[in-house]
């Protein structure tokens, strides 16, 4: 059972990383508009030609 001395500290680190990621995602506004995100996947293919090319040019 000595393996616990490795696994438990690992748990601590992983938990902290997960919590940090979550805090970052809230802070960057990813939970602001939950209705629109599912649509984005569908609409990405239809990006307007002109808008895309203009952004590339500039």
């Amino acid at each position, binding site marked *: *059972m000595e393996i*616990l001395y490795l696994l*438990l500290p690992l*748990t*601590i680190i992983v*938990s902290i990383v*997960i*919590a940090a990621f*979550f*805090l970052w995602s*809230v*802070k960057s506004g990813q*939970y*602001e*508009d*939950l*209705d*629109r995100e*599912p*649509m*984005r996947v*569908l*609409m990405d293919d*239809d*990006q*307007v*030609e*002109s*808008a895309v090319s*203009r952004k590339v040019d500039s």
Partner: protein
Amino acid sequence: MTDCYHCGSVIRSGRKVVREIDGVSHPMCCEGCATVAAIVHESGLEAYYKKRTALPPPVDESNETLPQTFSEILDDEAIHQQYVDSDGEQSTTAFIVHNIHCPTCVWLIESHLVSQPGVVDVKLNYRTQKLKVSWRSSEISLSEIVSRTQSLGYGLVPYSSTAISEIVNAQHQDLLKRMGVAGVFGMQIMVIAVALYSSAWTSIQFEYEELFRRLSLLFVLPVLFYSATPIFAGAWRDLKQRTATMDVPIALGLIIAFFASLTATLTGSGEIYYDSIAMFVFIQLIARFLEKGAYRRMTDRITSLSASTPNHANRLVDPGQVHSTVVVPALRLAVDDFVLIKPGEAIPADGEIVSGSTDVDEALLTGESNVVHRTIGDSVFGGSINVSNAVVVRVTRPSAESALASIVKLLEDSMSEKPSNTRLTDQIAGYFSVTVVMIALCIGVFWYWSGNTNWLSYPIAVLVVACPCALALAVPTALTAAVNSAAKRNILIAHPDAVQALAKVNTFLFDKTGTLTQSQAHLTRTEIFGQLSQSEAHDLAASLSSFSDHPICRALTDSLESDESEVTEVEVEHGGGIAGYVNEKRYYLGSRSYIDSKLPGAIDKISEPMDQVGLIAYLSDDTGVVAKFHFDNPLRDDAFRLIGRIKDFPARLALVTGDRQSEAERVAEELNIAEVHWGCSPKGKLGIIRSHQKLGESVAMVGDGINDTPTLAIANVSIAPARAQHIAKANADVLLLDDRLDLLVTARNLAEFTVKVMRNNTVWAIAYNLIGISLAAAGFVPPLAAAIGMSVSSILVVGNSLRITAYEHGNT
């Protein structure tokens, strides 16, 4: 029958417009739809039509209800100062977008705007309907951006964020973070707790048990010192104010449980409660998060409703020249400016008429639905509507000091008097925490005196078990379920307290015009005297009516589908009638007194009684009266449906109106309302509500206009119907999103049911705690039992609250 390509509505015959797009002709219902469809295709955004999940309303129709933003004033310095953030080169501003119906709209607007040269960034939030645009002012103007968006059939209103919505959003984010942290670390603690609990059946080496307990301690620190801080802060605030809410017993339970566990961990003997602490904080935060989430949705909705177009005015460049005007923001108007006010426009500031004469609708200020005639030298008030003719007004008081502004002031004053609803659980919590502490003390003393060496563990167990998890969930979960369930039925409850208030209401006060009756008059009956046929009389009346914008004339032209004949030598007498030649014969159309003055004795010939009810107009030629038109300000269909259903529950109904007695009594009689107050000014209405409240009654006010807003604010519950004006909606506790007044009954039943569920929950939670405390006092509650009891009681409470979501009452 075909459907419109753009809006999908059925195309009425005769209105069909065909527009060719990419070589294919598409049927359209109106010019507006055709134009929008063409723009969508030109910008290469036709994917909108494939991907959308909801249909927009017909463009021509929705344009009438959308707030019009006047692009001219958007480039004005004063507007920029109020709404735009600029760093010299790049400017940013926010709008509320009206008419967004599905997430594809978001994509359409963003893609269309971002393809405009000069636009740097566009972000549209579907939930809040808030559009944030950044642009380079050297390349594109604000008015250009606005008109681009409007060309797609959406309405735009400049937005300046209100303090309330910012605070609510910040709180929401903060709570989400704390909840997430409690979840992540709480789960680790629970996994470890399973290992520790299983040691009751199989053995565990002391070394590893110690390790697990210390690790739990480590994991509980962020939960307690980061996630749970709002609970401690709330408890501390309550203690300082010497009031007791739920936070006090919760914080007490957490602190005791933590220190008991801490001692146990450090000394290596005794029980630990880390899992209970973590789970408890997590469940608490979920409840708060749900509650705040419902509240945030409401605030967002209300913010977008209350955003309205900045007032504007047509200022004369030169007081002598009526034809050259500039559009300026109303805020820019100064005393002695000359302003042209066209029919249908709102008067931007208090002033005095210097040219022309017109009828003014002062309903917003006085509650009077009849128009008042105003001519040169008369005063007009900001906020009233010019009904009939264009006039020039000299401003006498700037916009900010106008009569409308003073109504808003009255509103703010009455807001501060609003009776607050003390929360059921908070009252209980006060007694609860005191009782629990007393019990724990007694038990500690008892076991100490009875000589038990382990005496301290008993009061600690009591305090941990007494931590009122289920009790704290009892009310918020029920309220959140009620608010969400109401929203599904198109009833918007602006804040959770309104649910309890609504369940208590025993008097419903209704405003008349616009709420119970339609806002416009209708022709009901035509009587013919003489040789004319009915359709000839209608033709004549409609032809004459088209020369005036008087409400009666509008009702005549609207309700008669006729071929209009040419009228010559028209004379319009305001507030009286119209005379003119049709086919070389002179006709008069007007009120009784108008016809009496033109043709004395004509009306006596048709033997009219003097005391007639309702609105009547006469048409006569030189020989006598030829036709008589009866008008009606009909009741809305849903008013009858409402009255039919409202009898089901014990609430009194009353009518308050600024209208005259005969009209008020007619409406009350038709709807079977016993209590009628007529001729009320906004102040008079406040008095009526106060007198009801003095009798100990709980009053709900249902009203739709600006003049109702002070009364809406003072009533225990204020309700605004779907057609209400923005300002009334923004101040209402309950908003009906569907044009059906009988939703009121649904709302009321739902509120009553919610209060019942809340009582259930509370009684059950208290019962659980009492049993738990007695067992703990006897020493029968190990930590595992405490953890199980806590989760089961919480789940039961949440499950009970979910019944509200599934609640159906009759034909809701």
